[in-house]
């Protein structure tokens, strides 16, 4: 199972990084989502992988799973979810205003007007 989880995190991260390096808004946001999935699984695994063990104290149970990463992952999921919504809205606004969805800077407009007007 360790191999499965580790390779899943690795593949998600690699795909996410590749997508983030694109120049259009949509692939970049997709890449961001993949990266946040990867980090959520990674956080979950940071408390060691245990199967079928309860996270809270119970009678007659010897082994427990670490409950803290689960709380951390919840926080991380909520934040990344909200952030993705925010960036989608801002990107939509930029797309509708500028009529293209490139992420990089447009060619500098001051380049021509920077000359002496006379």
């Amino acid at each position, binding site marked *: 199972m360790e191999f499965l989880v580790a390779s899943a995190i690795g593949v998600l991260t690699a795909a996410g990084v590749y997508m*983030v390096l694109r120049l259009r*808004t949509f692939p*970049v*946001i997709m890449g*961001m989502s993949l*990266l*946040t999935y990867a*980090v959520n699984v*990674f*956080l979950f*695994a*940071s*408390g*060691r992988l245990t199967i079928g063990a309860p996270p809270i104290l119970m009678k007659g149970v010897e082994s427990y799973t670490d409950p*803290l*990463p689960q709380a*951390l992952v919840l*926080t*991380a999921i909520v*934040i*990344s979810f*909200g*952030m*993705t919504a*925010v*960036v989608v809205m*801002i*990107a939509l*606004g*930029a797309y509708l*205003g*500028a009529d293209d969805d490139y*992420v*990089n*800077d*447009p060619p*500098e407009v*001051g*380049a021509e*007007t*920077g*000359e*002496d*007007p006379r």
Partner: protein
Amino acid sequence: MNHWIVLPVVLPAILAPFIVLAARYHIGIQRAVSIAGISALIAIAAGLAWQASDGTITLYRLSDWAAPFGIVVVADRLSTLMVLLTAVLALLVMLHAIGSGWDTRGRHFHALYQFQLMGLMGAFLTGDLFNLFVFFEVLLIASYGLMIHSGGHVRLRAGVQYVLYNLLASTLFLFALGSLYAATGSLNMADVAERVTLIGADASAGIRIAAVLLLLVFAIKAAIVPLHFWLPSSYAEAPAPVAALFAIMTKVGAYAIIRVYTIVFPPDLAVTSGLQGDWLLPAALATLAIGMFGVLAVRKLDRLVAYAVIGSMGMVMVAISLFTPESIAASLYYIVHSTLTAAALFLLCDLVRAGRADLVLAPRPPVAGAPLTAALFFAAAIAMVGLPPLSGFLGKLLILDAASDTPRMVWVWAVVLSMSLVALVGFSRAGSMLFWKARSVEQPEGAEPAARPSALAYVAVGGLIALLGAHTVLAGPIHDYMTRTAGQLFSSEPYIRKVLDTPGKMSAPSPGKETH
């Protein structure tokens, strides 16, 4: 338990929803609440700084849970200093936002401003790394809204870049926290600091990855080369008061580096040794150089100031990366100076912009109120470049002095001094282009001269310059205080003991003493 410590976080958190819910359509009430709230913050911050000034570390346990289990808020000299600086900066920037009418050019400026303050205060006060992440997110969410305040597609485009870059940084932060938790099993700074010392050299791979990842995250926040690419566009396109408030945001990164790399990963820790001197210092010198060359290369005033911010962050990081008590004291002195100067310069951009079609560094007809604006720009530029008599010069001297008996002295002196010259040329060119050459350009026929910016807008910039003056005149006592602050950072044992040994719920019962 002293509840005042958590108030800088709670007060803006209450005021912001109040502004949205109760005063949504009343800009007058919003302004009054905002100013009153920030004034109260200054009073609280001054009280906290006074309390911490004799070296006491005060601790606040949220819900009274004991330290490694619950989240703690810790106020020591460094935290309260940054909180006070933020509060004072926030008041002056808010005065400018009201005076220049920026707060009426879009919705919810005041509410977002309060949320931004909440995030900043929380980031400075928290004693828990995951909580630091959460407060980073709070200040970032608010900054996304402020950054695109009053809209326009150029600003939105810059906003998309800014948000995406910071989302990546947040993801990286989570990876860092995950590896730290996997290696130590705790995220409380004091607790991690204790556990890190127990890790042997043979099992240090995880903790080393965590230390480097955390440094990368904070380096993104502090805009250190090669992670600075988010800064020029977003600071230049953000509304001027927002950019001025953002002057403290890069310092959050610097603060986090100072905090984490003195308490959790101190320079004498074997498993992470070499990180500061071998990696951070060259990056800091490169940051300084690229920032100042940027000042020379750009064609617009707002970008020029953005690159000057990068350069001054380079200066701060040079001092931090030497990691001696003297250099940390020098960097703290320079952080205060650099925050005030950068904010003043961004506000001046707005004053210049008020009478011009754009901020391109080319001769344009003189603007209304140009003599006063020019005089203020002159003072702020002197401060930023680091010429006498203002505090930039003293800060630079302190940094050079702190570097003088280290093996890397040659590099530090050479880069700092030559880049000062480059910055001097860049700012002289900008100033003479904007204000002197303007006198030789005729006002076009029939053009109405633009109205002079309001007096309140000038009060804000004048206030920042006056604070710089005070920072210079009182340099002796302030530097003494910074030295004591650095001393407290480098003897972290009282901090760790205070956090871990203060009893609360879930504490291990100590013999002979009843805990609750």
